[in-house]
């Protein structure tokens, strides 16, 4: 049995915005929007009747112009303009807004990662060593230093620290069977031998001078030097750098928060000892409070137009450098993963090697 259609029509509303914002959002966005318009980051045709939409359109275009699409191929996270350093629930937000007197005078550019990107670098280091003995350590040093500008990097040094802490309480027998011991044992000789003596400047110069024979190694060098060039002059804008004078109450806020989550995990091979230590630490991240964001830059709205424009320009320059640098890093990570996949294929093809599907072959991105 088919029923008769109901005599109901849905009105079509023309010229209505998809989203409306509260008056608390529109005010600060209007101040920022005027600055972005003066700086040419927003355009007149971005205007749809809402200051928040206006800023969002300009910011979206800015991000895509600076390589956000490439960055997203490896990193899951966001770069946003917000009035709060931490994510708030609807209830918390209503409470904050009810207690607020007048318009807020700060906005923040906040960058954070939802997951740590996996970078199994062992096979790449072995490939680079064929070109020059110092190339793996130089590559590692320049890559990690430049990633640190935009995120917390979890690598063998963090794993060593974690392992040392837990090994203190283990008996000799337990130590023998423990994964923690492997952290130190698995460090490739090329890294172990030179990592403490090779300075950043020397490492960078080496990368510029050495001409590897293979195209993949040359490509890695090229993207790394690009990454380094984009990030030059910038430092990690972690929230701890914001002073109490700059943003009153920030110290209390940060003391209640946990250390920020890593944006990438550099292992030698997937599921190695570094991976195991990371998994252990990751289980407890964010248990005692919200995690600080990886990047936080305040924008003070209560400034004369010229000074505000200077600050907005500086903040957006940082965002541009971050996106461009990470876009180059994303190309490096893709090459590193390709080399790792190649390593897996080669080793499974060896006669006598058990070709069973292991967890190491599955990459959870």
């Amino acid at each position, binding site marked *: 049995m088919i029923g008769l259609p109901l*005599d*109901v*029509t849905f009105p079509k509303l023309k010229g209505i915005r998809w989203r409306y914002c509260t*008056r608390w959002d*529109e*005010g600060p966005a*209007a*101040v920022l*929007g*005027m600055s972005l*318009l*003066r*700086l*040419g*980051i927003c355009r*007149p*045709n*971005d*205007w749809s*009747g*809402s*200051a928040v939409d*206006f800023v969002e359109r300009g910011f979206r275009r*800015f991000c895509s*112009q*600076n390589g956000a699409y490439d960055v997203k191929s490896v990193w899951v996270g966001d770069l946003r303009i917000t009035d709060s350093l931490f994510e708030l629930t609807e209830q918390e937000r209503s409470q904050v807004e009810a207690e607020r007197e*007048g*318009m807020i005078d700060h906005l923040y550019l906040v960058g954070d990662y939802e997951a740590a990107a996996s970078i199994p670098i062992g096979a790449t280091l072995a490939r680079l060593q064929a070109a020059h003995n110092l190339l793996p350590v130089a590559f590692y040093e320049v890559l990690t230093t430049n990633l640190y500008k935009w995120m917390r990097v979890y690598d063998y040094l963090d794993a060593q620290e974690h392992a040392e802490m837990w090994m203190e309480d283990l008996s000799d027998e337990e130590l023998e069977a423990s994964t923690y011991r492997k952290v130190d044992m698995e460090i490739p000789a090329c890294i172990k031998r030179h990592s403490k003596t090779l300075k950043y400047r020397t490492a960078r110069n080496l990368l510029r001078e050495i001409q590897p024979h293979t195209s993949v190694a040359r490509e890695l060098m090229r993207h790394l030097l690009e990454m380094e060039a984009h990030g030059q002059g910038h430092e990690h804008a972690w929230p701890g750098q914001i002073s109490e004078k700059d943003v009153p109450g920030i110290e209390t806020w940060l003391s209640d928060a946990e250390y920020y989550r890593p944006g990438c995990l550099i292992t030698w091979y997937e599921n190695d000892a570094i991976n195991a230590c990371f998994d252990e630490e990751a289980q407890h991240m964010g248990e005692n409070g919200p995690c600080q964001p990886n990047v936080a830059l305040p924008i003070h709205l209560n400034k004369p137009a010229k000074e505000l424009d200077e600050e907005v*320009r500086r903040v*957006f*320059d940082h*965002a*541009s450098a971050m996106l*461009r640098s990470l876009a180059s890093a994303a190309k490096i990570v893709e090459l590193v993963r390709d080399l790792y996949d190649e390593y897996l294929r080669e080793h499974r093809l060896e006669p006598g090697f058990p070709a069973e599907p292991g967890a190491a072959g599955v990459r959870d991105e």
Partner: protein
Amino acid sequence: MNCIGCPGACPEPANDVLPSTREVVSIVASKTEMSIQSANTRRRPDGEPTKRVMQALEDSLQANTKASSSIMEQLRQCPEAFKVGEILGKAFDPLKYAQDGGELGDRYLPPAGVVIPPLV
């Protein structure tokens, strides 16, 4: 700025070759300075939309400032309005819920602020 004396020498970048923020800013700054210098002699196709949007942003900022104290402003201007509202509210109270014959708890009048969709 280098561009003031040579309009056209620094063309807008193509969409696929994207300028850095610094470049975007310097391009815009050059244009602004050019337009200030030659305001009386050339038409500025981008000037009016920019002014209009700047004004709209200014208006939304003003509206925001006013809105944040609108209740206090109304109270200051006409404190009697609140008294009148209270009396009217009490007058309608008996009509809010069912009287004799109706089931307890049925509302006759919808709560304040409810939007009722028209039924055809």
